[in-house]
């Protein structure tokens, strides 16, 4: 367990995840977290088709899992999120993550993942830093 974790290096780009924001994704997320905000339901487009920022805020997890990182026994300890533009159904988001820190504290290993998310016109729509600790 953890072979991938041991291979992690500061500065390493761990991957890119490109995805189109879909109505189905929004429905699944909003059912999971019981968010009934009507903005998220596609009807006439415009302001009513805004996507919840969570759909890009956790892109780092998609990227880390797709890259084969061993995250089964990790806790999330800190997050920093910055939202810069609205995202809507149909936007194609490309998120890229890299390791910006790795350290030990109280005999536990931590990594910090920075992620930049851009839309199809290369506009930065969000950036984040997430800290994970391995507990086993």
């Amino acid at each position, binding site marked *: 367990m953890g072979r991938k974790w041991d291979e992690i290096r500061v500065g390493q780009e761990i991957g890119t995840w490109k995805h189109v924001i879909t109505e189905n994704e929004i429905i699944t997320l909003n*059912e*999971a977290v019981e968010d009934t905000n009507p903005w998220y339901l596609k009807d006439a487009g415009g302001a009513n088709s805004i996507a919840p*920022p969570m759909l890009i*805020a956790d892109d780092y997890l998609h990227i880390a*899992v797709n890259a084969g990182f061993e995250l089964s026994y990790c806790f999330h*300890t800190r997050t920093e999120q910055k*939202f810069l533009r609205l995202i809507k159904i149909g936007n194609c988001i490309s998120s890229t993550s890299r390791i910006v820190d790795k350290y030990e504290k109280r005999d536990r290993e931590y990594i910090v993942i920075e992620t930049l998310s851009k839309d199809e016109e290369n506009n930065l729509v969000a950036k984040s830093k997430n800290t994970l600790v391995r507990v*086993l």
Partner: protein
Amino acid sequence: MNRIEVGYSLESVVKRPTLEQSRLNASRYKGEFWETSIHTNEAEARKVGFTKPLFEGMFLINYIFQIMSNAFREAWFRQGELSIALLSPVFPGESVTAKGVVIEKVQDDEGITVILDVWLENDRTDKILAGKAVVRLEPDQM
């Protein structure tokens, strides 16, 4: 949004999330990882000393997103920032409440910056996660 002054409390959100909801959220991710994580699988959670799966951090942070988007609408999506420390685990069946209070409001020629303490607390009012949120309001959003 003129009502938003220092000391103003955002409308809170109360939830009692279930393991099924955690698994539904995990279904958005590819691969088998989420079926064998401490967030969805009881046997795996026991390996790290818990009696049942604990919620993944981003799942819980969603509730902070909800109170911020309910209060600040598009401004939160366009110019919102959040810095949160996750302090203790939450398990299925526990009730959580997302709260926020405005602690600073800075006005300049181009708009207002609102700074808030935000947190999630359990039934015992222990903070489960806590931090700061910042949102920038343009003149047409005030």
